[in-house]
């Protein structure tokens, strides 16, 4: 009986292809957007995760006074070179495996008559190791160059490609940054997210050089960020707590104030997750509205169908169909409508996601985003489709089931 109802439903659906298609549109769009946002969310999360792993997840970033400014109501607290040294040697933080601290500022560079806005990061050579930067040509700057304040700079691959065409070609060239001539000593591969998304040129120079040239006199021994790499397997929550304690102790920050922004890379993922969830909820709400409107469309078409097929209902009852059989028959028809709509929605959503991934890869090849299939999405979509069919098919089906056999047979 069930199979008969389902085949009958498909026959009805195919008999009125145009009408059925229009009816299902709301469900298709609703389900499609759910699939789209779930898939893209996962794609984005996977991408971000791969980026963060590329950086290394066992890294904590600390921003102090300077460009991030005070957080909360507290005054900015300066972190000096001496503080860094003390932190590095702290007995409370034996897990530190590498540490770099730097100063950064935005400047304009000039090469061959062209101007480029860029950020210059002054740091120690450890910066490259902590961030897992791969050398493409030349070399990193050295510790002695930091001590000497050498005017050398390491550039990213995008900048190198744009200005010098090849990496090797960039090495040895002279570039003027804010009027000072620097020599390019190396090209590094930047994380994809940095090269594409932020669209910002970043160059790396020895800390002392950058500070001497660009920092105000009172900040000559200050850093504005710290990157700390800790041993794998460290309890990051405990480490972070001890780090905070030590930072406050060393810098003499007032107790209870929050002068530092401490961000572990796993926290980035958590923050992203929260944002993603918010976006997903928002889109789901819109999809919900679409499904509601689609559901009303389904209800409408089912009412029309019941009306058109009054004689059929009368006949079925005359030959022995009970109210319940008629109810189930029309409920199944409505479920078939929404489920077929849902399946088209799944195809539509997956297609759109695949296209979006393709488009991103076309526009930003460096990102190398890969498509992710979320198995939960189609399962959820099917569930939602069936539920929509039941909810919006119930009233027409109930109406059909309560028709009187004689009146239905006589219905004109």
């Amino acid at each position, binding site marked *: 009986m069930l199979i008969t109802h389902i085949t009958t439903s498909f026959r009805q659906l195919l008999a009125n292809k145009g009408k059925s298609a229009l009816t299902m549109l709301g469900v298709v769009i609703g389900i499609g957007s759910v699939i789209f946002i779930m898939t893209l969310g996962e794609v984005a999360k996977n991408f971000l995760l791969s980026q963060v792993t590329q950086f290394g997840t066992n890294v904590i970033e600390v921003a102090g006074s300077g460009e991030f400014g005070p957080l909360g109501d507290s005054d900015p607290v300066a972190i000096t070179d001496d503080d860094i040294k003390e932190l590095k040697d702290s007995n409370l933080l034996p897990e530190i495996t590498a540490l770099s601290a730097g100063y950064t500022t935005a400047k304009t560079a000039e090469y061959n008559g062209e101007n480029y806005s860029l950020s210059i990061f002054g740091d120690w050579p450890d910066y490259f190791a902590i961030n897992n930067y791969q050398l493409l040509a030349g070399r990193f700057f050295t510790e002695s160059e930091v001590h000497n304040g050498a005017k050398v700079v390491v550039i990213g691959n995008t900048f190198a490609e744009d200005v010098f065409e090849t990496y090797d070609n960039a090495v040895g060239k002279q570039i003027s940054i804010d009027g000072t001539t620097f020599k390019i000593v190396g090209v590094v591969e930047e994380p994809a997210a940095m090269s594409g998304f932020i669209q910002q040129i970043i160059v790396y120079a020895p800390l002392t050089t950058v500070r001497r040239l660009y920092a105000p006199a009172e900040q000559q021994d200050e850093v504005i960020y710290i990157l700390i790499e800790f041993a794998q397997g460290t309890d990051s929550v405990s480490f972070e707590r001890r780090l905070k304690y030590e930072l406050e102790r060393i810098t003499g920050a007032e107790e209870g104030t929050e002068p530092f922004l401490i961000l572990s890379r796993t926290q980035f993922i958590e923050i992203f997750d929260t944002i993603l969830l918010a976006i997903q909820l928002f889109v789901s709400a819109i999809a919900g509205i679409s499904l509601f409107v689609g559901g009303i469309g389904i209800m409408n078409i089912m009412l029309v169908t019941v009306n058109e097929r009054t004689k059929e209902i009368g006949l079925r009852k*005359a030959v022995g169909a*009970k109210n319940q059989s008629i109810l189930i028959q029309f409920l199944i028809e409505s479920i078939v409508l929404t489920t077929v709509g849902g399946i088209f929605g799944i195809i539509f959503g997956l297609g759109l996601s695949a296209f979006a991934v393709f488009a991103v890869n076309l526009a930003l090849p460096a990102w190398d985003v890969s498509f992710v299939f979320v198995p939960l999405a189609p399962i959820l979509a099917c569930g939602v489709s069936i539920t929509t069919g039941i909810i919006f098919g119930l009233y027409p089906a109930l109406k059909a089931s309560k028709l009187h056999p004689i009146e239905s047979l006589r219905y004109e």
Partner: protein
Amino acid sequence: MTEKEPPVPPIIHIRRLTKTYWNGDVAIPAVRGVDLDIEEGDFVSLTGPSGSGKSTLMNLLAFLDAPDSGTYQFGGQDITAFDEDYRAELRNAVIGFVFQQFFLLARTTALDNVAMPLMYAGKKKRQAREQAYDVLQKVSLEHRIYHNPNELSGGQQQRVCIARALVNNPRIIFCDEPTGNLDSKTAKEIMDIFDKLNDEGKTIVMVTHEPSIAKHAKTQLCMKDGKMTEKC
């Protein structure tokens, strides 16, 4: 005292049956106290002018509707107080219908149209189709089983209806103007089928307003103003 066979109850036994329809606030007394007995194996025609209540009476006899008052015993069993679901079950089990407008399901083969009542009896699809094929053979349509109604002539469509009415091997067949939509030659063919069925022992009750069709019946009943009359 002599041993007597218990009398075979008539298949239909009704007393003082009434049914009133409401058209808004206006009461239309369609059946006004009808007494009637129909024996098993009879061929009954029910004639009368339109509005005489003959269709209403047939609907009551066929469990399509419940009477307002009176009693109805079917095969000796009082079914007056049966509820809707039980009446549906009864229709499915013991009654066959043949309608003037055929009421065949569109885009559904003759075979599946005939098998349809058996689906409500809980039969498996395969078995239902086998039984449907048998009765289609009986009405000489075995070469048309995969045709949809719109591919069949009027006479063929009515034969599909007869097959559908026979598929559950009913105790009684109700026909409402079965030849009303057919030309006279086809009408005769259809009536021949009914005659043959009655010869085989099927009880048939036929509502018609055509005297030539009513003549096929063994018992000719007439109705006027919701009551049985002697003269037609």
